[in-house]
């Protein structure tokens, strides 16, 4: 299902450094981060907890500014690519209906026009959520809420989606289902995505390319292309394949090395 990469970058990070400042001094979080994400790719950032993965997303989204280095966005026209951000929790607002939650972003950006609302209807239909549009989010299951959060992000027609451990609050079973749903939705909408996770199998099952990160100060240790289809493994069966295990072991080893060093 994954499209062949068009080898057209959408985002590049060059020598990005970032530090937090606290009473105890400067905490260097990111140390010389370099990577490129191609258009249409599904990239995953995998690393130990607290290694600054989310910081990278905040930098890309422009919520934080790097201490030094460059973040470059590529676009076909002269507009900067629109970045959509999906947080760890769905943060659906309980006083709004599902539909009102989905249109929150459009409302904020004053883009509640006919065209965009049609897109919302289309997305709701396509992902079988039309029947709950008038309900309050409290009536829905965690998996459904997370899909609604995704549609809220997609309604803004982002070119680049940032997923910050969006499944970590879900139970295991739901997580498998929803991560597959989200993957399929993103692929069928032909979006570029960057997923941050500490769950290695989640990254392997969703991504086309995995960036393995080290402990803080965080650098990129390895770039690992994930190629199931090219190796004759259909996506549905990947979790059973030996290739999946190989990828898992390799990333596991790299993260272990990291833990035993020092």
């Amino acid at each position, binding site marked *: 299902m994954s499209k062949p990469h068009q080898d057209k970058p959408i985002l590049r990070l060059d020598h990005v450094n970032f530090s937090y400042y606290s009473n105890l001094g400067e905490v260097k979080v990111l140390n010389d981060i370099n990577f490129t994400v191609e258009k249409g790719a599904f990239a995953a950032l995998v690393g130990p907890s607290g290694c600054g993965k989310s910081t990278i997303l905040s930098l890309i989204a422009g919520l934080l500014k790097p201490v030094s280095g460059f973040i470059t966005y590529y676009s076909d026209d002269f507009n900067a690519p629109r970045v*959509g951000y999906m947080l760890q929790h769905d943060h659906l607002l309980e006083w709004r209906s599902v539909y009102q939650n989905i249109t929150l*972003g459009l409302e*904020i950006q004053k883009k509640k026009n006919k065209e965009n609302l049609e897109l919302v209807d289309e997305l709701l239909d396509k992902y079988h959520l039309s029947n*709950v549009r008038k*309900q309050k989010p409290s*009536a829905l*299951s965690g998996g459904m809420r997370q899909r609604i959060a995704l549609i809220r992000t997609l309604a*803004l027609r982002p070119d680049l989606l940032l997923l910050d451990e969006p499944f970590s609050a879900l139970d295991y079973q739901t997580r498998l289902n929803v991560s*597959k*749903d989200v993957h399929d939705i993103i692929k069928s909408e032909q979006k570029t995505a960057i997923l941050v996770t500490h769950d290695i199998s989640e990254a392997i099952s969703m991504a086309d390319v995995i960036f393995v990160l080290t402990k803080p100060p965080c650098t990129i240790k390895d770039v690992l292309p994930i190629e199931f289809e090219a190796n004759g493994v259909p996506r549905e069966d990947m979790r059973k394949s030996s290739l999946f295990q190989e990828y898992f072991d390799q990333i596991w080893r790299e993260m272990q090395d990291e833990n035993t060093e020092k």
Partner: protein
Amino acid sequence: MKIQKNNHETNDIIKSDAAALTIGQKNFLRRQKLQKLYIFWSRILLFAAFVMLWQVSADLGWIDSFYFSSPITISKLFWHDVQDMSLLSHIGITLLESGVSFLLIILFSLLTATFFWFYPSLGKMFEPFLIVLNSLPKSALAPLIIVWLGTGPRTIILCGISVGIFGCILNLYQSFEQTDPERLKLIETLGGTKLQAFTKVVFPGNIPTFISLSKVNIGLALVGVIIGEFLAGRKGLGYLIIYGSQVFKLDMVILSIVILCVIAMGIYGLLNLLEKKISY
């Protein structure tokens, strides 16, 4: 391991179809209903017993009805005073003053807390002063207010405001401050401004707090207004209570207290209704 794509989550929504009630469910519902009825009628009975005991005690001379009055005397007095319109105007004045105090408390607290949320360093600056003022027994301010503003409704309304306002500002501001930072981040990721974060997340998210604060403060406004009327009123239930006690018309005092009970009950009921309507 096969991951099935389905919409299994859609089935998780609890469907409350009344059509298919099992016997167990019916029994459960009946027991629940009986329990509710039992509590309701017990309350009525308790109240009736109290009123009757009061009346009987007064009639049989167990208590001195000069000091303690009696339900029938109070009812007669109520009817008499209602007919010559004097009582209604006293009730009206107290209600009006409390209402105005309450609205001013809410309005001013909302504005101040909002302002503090937008400028947190201002909030931090004022916080300790508000805490001190909030801990102060506000009735101590009343004589001062009388000297400043003289007697009359202005003083009484200011007394009504003074009791609740500092706590209301503090609570509302602290509750605004405690908005989940991740939700604010959500607005930021959707490209929203700080104003939008306030109107879309902070304010609507704090409506339950706002309502419970209203519940507390309408009571406090009433307290403040009664204190004000004690000291500076020419009209109102607080004035009736003080006046009645000074001329030993204790029937009037107790009648006023009973009316205050009814007012408090009415306000409580009204706010509960509002709370139910808004809750999500």
